[in-house]
């Protein structure tokens, strides 16, 4: 009897299996964020761009690990003058549907990117005044005002096929991806996986792994279990809290590398508030014991930051020092500024955005209470936090930042420049810090064409911002990746955390 049921069951499975047992993936990658849409311009978050980088190419690309800019669909590029950029395109590249890639696609792509219906990459698209295509393989962009980082964003503006995209633009443009990339889109089962297969005719040569599955697993403990149960080959985003446990697994190699994101405390200098006095801002910086935060809260998985940009960013200055932890000096500064008994301060921050964001806010609250301030904590979900941040409701808040364009000027326009809705400046300057000297330096820097000269100008701004305590840098996050041993997988994680499957050997 039992035997018979077993037989029937086997027979049933045998009947069904051929349908489902398609090519098993050669490589299974788990990541922490699901894709939002299959439209390459739908979202500017790195989580979404990461998926898209496999199906599409930009005019340029960045290679692991440090993200040096190199040619992709464009072979050469040049800033002709302050407003003009020239790209010479690669010949003989084909889309997955067989169409040829040419300058008309580039023009179409950047025009499509201006439409908020299809695109959230409005920033770079709106800075373009005109696009000229003198021949099929040359594109000349003219920007409205000087955009020194224009080429630096070209790794994330993915080029789409004009002919097929126009056709589907009101239908399924969000559910299927089709570009020139190293992988062809096979299937997106929402909530389960993205399946892709190698593009054998890829212009850079066919990638090593033929069938690749990317699984978004949002829950930390589930990602851990998937790794423990050897259900995945690579995990992007091993939770800091489980670092020691993962390290102890014999079948797993763990890679921990500096992330680009700096976590810092934003602070204002609004007239009429205690923060107006630089001594108060210095006192707050001196009160925070960042070393303890890294050891206790981040479990060593972070490196101390002296400034906001990270090492590869244009504008990083190795000579900048941070204000040391010194509670005695902090109290003295507060007394000098006329607040011997402290004042009321609210620490704002998100609780679901950065690694241990809420705990860091709590720690900062504790340190500030020690030097005599009356601290209130205002920690909330990111959807509400960023809403309030962009309406400048805060005086003191925790935020993290990195700029995909590796240009401090671009970050500073958003974080440091006095908020100005008409000019599009200071969008994330949550406490409305304002320094007219920095503002004018910043505006002047964007017209400098020579890269070395521009770097010097940005370093100057960077130095001034730290000296004036426009922000209090805390640390750079550490990204942790895990690779299952014994399969010969060579994985070099990228600093932007993109999973570019063609780079995995």
């Amino acid at each position, binding site marked *: 009897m039992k035997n018979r049921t077993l037989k029937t069951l086997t027979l049933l499975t045998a009947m069904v299996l051929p349908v489902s047992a398609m090519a098993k993936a050669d490589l299974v990658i788990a990541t922490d964020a699901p894709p939002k849409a299959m439209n390459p311009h739908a979202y500017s978050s790195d989580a979404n761009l990461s998926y898209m980088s496999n199906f599409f190419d930009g005019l340029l690309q960045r290679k692991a690990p440090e993200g040096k800019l190199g040619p992709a669909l464009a072979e050469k590029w040049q800033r002709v003058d302050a407003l003009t950029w020239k790209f010479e395109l690669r010949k003989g590249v084909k889309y997955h549907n067989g169409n040829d890639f040419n300058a008309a696609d580039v023009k179409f792509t950047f025009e499509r990117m201006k439409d*908020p219906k299809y695109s959230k990459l409005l920033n770079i698209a709106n800075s373009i005044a005109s696009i000229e295509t003198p021949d099929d393989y040359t594109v000349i962009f003219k920007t409205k005002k000087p955009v020194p980082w224009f080429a630096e964003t070209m790794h994330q503006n993915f080029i789409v096929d004009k002919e097929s995209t126009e056709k589907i633009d009101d239908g399924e443009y969000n559910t299927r991806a089709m570009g020139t990339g190293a992988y062809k889109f096979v299937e997106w089962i929402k909530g389960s996986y993205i399946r892709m297969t190698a593009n054998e005719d890829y212009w850079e040569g066919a990638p090593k792994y033929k069938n690749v599955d990317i699984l978004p697993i949002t829950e930390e403990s589930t990602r851990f279990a998937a790794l423990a149960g050897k259900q995945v080959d690579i995990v992007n985003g091993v939770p800091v809290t489980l670092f020691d446990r993962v390290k102890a697994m014999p079948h797993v190699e763990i890679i921990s590398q500096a992330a680009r994101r700096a976590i810092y405390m934003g602070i204002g200098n609004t007239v009429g508030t205690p923060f107006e006095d630089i001594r108060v801002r210095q006192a707050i910086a001196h009160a925070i014991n960042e070393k303890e935060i890294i050891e206790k809260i981040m479990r060593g998985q972070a490196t101390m930051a002296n400034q906001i940009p990270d090492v590869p960013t244009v504008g990083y200055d190795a000579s900048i020092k941070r204000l040391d932890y010194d509670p005695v000096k902090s109290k003295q500064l507060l007394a000098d500024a006329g607040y011997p008994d402290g004042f009321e301060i609210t620490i704002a921050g998100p609780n679901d955005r950065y690694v241990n964001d809420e705990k860091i806010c709590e720690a900062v609250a504790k340190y500030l209470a020690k030097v005599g301030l009356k601290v209130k904590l205002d920690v909330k979900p990111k959807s509400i936090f960023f809403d309030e941040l962009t309406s400048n409701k805060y005086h003191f808040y925790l935020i993290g930042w990195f700029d995909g364009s590796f240009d401090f000027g671009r970050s500073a326009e958003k974080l440091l420049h006095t908020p100005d809705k008409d000019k599009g400046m200071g969008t994330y300057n949550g406490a409305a810090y304002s320094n007219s000297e920095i503002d004018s330096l910043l505006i002047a820097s964007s017209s400098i064409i020579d890269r070395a000269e521009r770097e010097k100008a940005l370093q100057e701004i960077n130095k001034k911002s730290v000296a004036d305590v426009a922000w209090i840098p805390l640390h750079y996050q550490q990204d942790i990746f895990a690779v299952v041993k014994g399969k010969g997988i060579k994985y070099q994680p990228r600093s932007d955390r993109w999973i570019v499957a063609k780079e995995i050997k």
Partner: protein
Amino acid sequence: MTTYLAKRLLQGVIVLILVSMVCFAMFRFTGDPVVMLAGKDATYEEREQIRVAYGLDRPVYAQYFSFLKGAMQGDFGRSYVSQIDALDTILERFPATFELAVTAMCISFVLGVGLGVIVSISPNGVISRMIMAGSLVGISIPTFLIGILLVMFFSVYLDILPSFGRGDTVQIGFWRTGLLTLSGWQHILLPALTLSGYQLAVLIRLTRAGMRETLSEEYIKTAWAKGLSPAKVILKHALRNVMIPVVTIAGLSFGELIAFSIVTETIFQWPGMGNLLLTSIFETDQPIIVTYIMLAAFIILSINILVDLLYALLNPRIRYE
């Protein structure tokens, strides 16, 4: 009967409208979706551009009425995040959730009633006491802990069952099922057990209480005296009467299994509707949230009506006039 049904349906529609109103009122406190959509590079001006493109510049009541108008015609709008039809997005996830809920339901019903009967026959036996203690554990331990414990034991320690996902699936028409493959069954076991935990415990206790009461009734004594076999007395005469409240409770909580499997789905990365809802809440994807909540309300309402009707079938004394 018909008037009763019509009345219930009318009530249902009113409840659905109220639910949608509560959702829209709630959205005022869940943050601005435009900030999340626009991303970190957008300037103020670009955010306003997006706000207009999504119709979010209009007052709340105008947004609500255009939603209601669309909803009447079955159009619940598009997800802000993916720009895919909201109802389609949710319904695509429905089979996963439904299969999980049905499997959980079967587990809890068969085990719950079975164990309940065993316990009621020898209430003071060692096994019975263990089962009852176990059911207490099932009621008091939160779902996420049961889930994590199961994963730790079966996936990490014993390494015999997968810890997440749905395994291989087969597409039949619009329905994507995992119940036709071996890997699908392996994948559904742990989440279904987790989801059934609470209900299982409730059903055991309910069956036991009902059985103990019924077994002391006069007509059962008569049945024993007639010399009927224990199986007939217990299963046919006693259990049938106990089933009425059991079916009611099981049916009512089936709706909840479907609508609120969020925790279980999140732990097991189950690609169902609950998982989608959680992601959407984090992303302030209002069209998905409101459509989900209305769909959940709709399912629970329909099941309530169905259970009431089923009740009348099981118990001929009940009539809806």
